[in-house]
């Protein structure tokens, strides 16, 4: 299994770095924009916080966009949230199915390794890449604060990155399951699931009757504005996330160990 992990890391490192540099770099640029926009942001902050449900949806009622923390949570929170979830979905959705798409499955599965070990090895690769991705982005964000000579909100930043990582693992686990089914529409399906989860969270914050069910989606506990405003995640959001990850993993094993490999 170690050989599979090493091999997958080698094959995917470049792609992961491109995504991390892109998302982290965009976040870094966003942070740098804070000083140039400081004056305008002050004016915008008041009107943004008075937009009712929409202010809630985008976290502008809990945190002032005029502060560096508020600006980071609103701007970088959205960039990282969407960017990282797209990366997780894109990365995981082809991890298993690429062996059949590229007709390399017969080579891999003729080696003495069970499908279970292949799933585990590739799953560990996804996990390691998501951690590396988060760390690289984190370095960019810290550099942004350092560059602006602003105090680094270390605890909030760590909680933000940790929550984003968990959200990425959750969406990746769903995409990994999609990959195991080898559906022709898996890329669209995986990215679609991620976008639906994002929109579910936005709607949940706009529509009052949906607010109580926000905890079902991963964006509920990874809301940057709430994290930087030191608001706790919805009560059941973490147990639900853990259940979804475990169920998706179990379904991936169940599906992939029983399916006929395409020739």
């Amino acid at each position: 299994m170690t050989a599979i992990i090493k091999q997958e890391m080698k094959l995917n490192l470049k792609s992961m770095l491109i995504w991390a540099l892109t998302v982290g770099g965009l976040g870094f640029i966003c942070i740098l924009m804070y000083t140039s926009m400081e004056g305008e942001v002050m004016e915008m902050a008041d009107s943004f916080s008075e937009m009712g449900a929409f202010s809630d949806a985008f976290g502008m009622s809990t945190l002032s966009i005029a502060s560096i923390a508020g600006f980071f949570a609103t701007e970088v929170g959205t960039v990282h949230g969407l960017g990282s979830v797209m990366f997780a979905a894109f990365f995981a959705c082809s991890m298993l199915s690429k062996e059949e798409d590229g007709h390399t499955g017969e080579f891999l599965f003729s080696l003495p390794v069970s499908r279970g070990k292949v799933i585990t090895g590739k799953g560990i690769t996804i996990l390691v890449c998501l951690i590396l991705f988060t760390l690289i982005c984190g370095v960019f964000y810290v550099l942004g604060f350092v560059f602006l000579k602003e105090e680094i909100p270390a605890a909030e930043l760590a909680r933000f990155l940790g929550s984003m990582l968990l959200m990425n693992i959750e969406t990746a686990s769903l995409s990994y399951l999609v990959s195991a089914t080898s559906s022709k529409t898996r890329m669209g399906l995986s990215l679609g699931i991620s976008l639906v989860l994002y929109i579910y969270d936005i709607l949940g914050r706009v529509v009052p009757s949906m607010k109580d069910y926000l905890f079902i989606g991963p964006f509920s506990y990874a809301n940057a504005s709430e994290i930087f405003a030191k608001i706790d995640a919805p009560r059941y959001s973490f147990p639900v996330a853990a259940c979804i990850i475990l169920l998706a993993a179990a379904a991936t094993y169940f599906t992939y160990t029983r399916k006929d490999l395409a020739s």
Partner: protein
Amino acid sequence: MENMIGIRNLTKRYGKKRGVEDVSFEVQKGEIFGFIGPNGAGKSTTIRSMLGFIRFDSGSISILGMDAVKDHEKILEKVGYMPSEALFYPGMKVSEVIRYAADVRGKDCGQEAAKLCERLEVDTSKKIRELSLGNRKKVSIVCAMQHRPELFIFDEPTGGLDPLVQNTFFELIKEYVKEGATCLLSTHILPEVRKHCDRAAIMREGHLIKTDTVENLIRSTAKSVKVTVDGRTEEYMYNGDLNDLIGELSKRHLENLSITDPSLEDMFMHFYEGGKEKS
């Protein structure tokens, strides 16, 4: 003789489509066993069932004395498989692919791999995407042989290989077999079977229709009869008393008559076309 492969009543269907039905045969230790049949006959389905790529519906497969389903991983440690499509990760170098296959096996196959690369003239510094089909096939041979397996399973191995490499390939098989290995050679190239195999099984439309030594398949009691009457030539296989045949033929005005032992190709075509032997 020790059975290296034992297949009993193997049946696999793809939904409503036929895969293989009630296939049974054995491959004994030390033999080169030909597995022949036209495209779509069920050879690859049988092999893919043996290697655990697909789940079969009923029957049992025993390889090296172990159950193909329960002991799948242990079996693959001792099997060298070469698929018909030699496809690898395009961005990897040949040397990396060969080392990766050895690493997954947890073995240091460096010495054997180097020997095989030299014999087959494999350029290990090239990337997979730069290789022709023939050169990818050579990489596939190295991956299948470098760990010196007890059982080789080759699925259409020689397609794309030039005659010199084909020659080296069969030399290598014979060397390993001499040292105790066994080989299942799935092919539709009949001269390969005639030249290199001890026994063979013929598949047609998902059914195994004949298993015998190659010698017996050729020297079957059936005769290939070619007769010309009134300018018309008839050709058929005859499996019965030759005196009856001569008696029957003598009633007609013959222009030409040829009664010969059938070639393996004739036998194969006969079974392939589903023709029945006259008796």
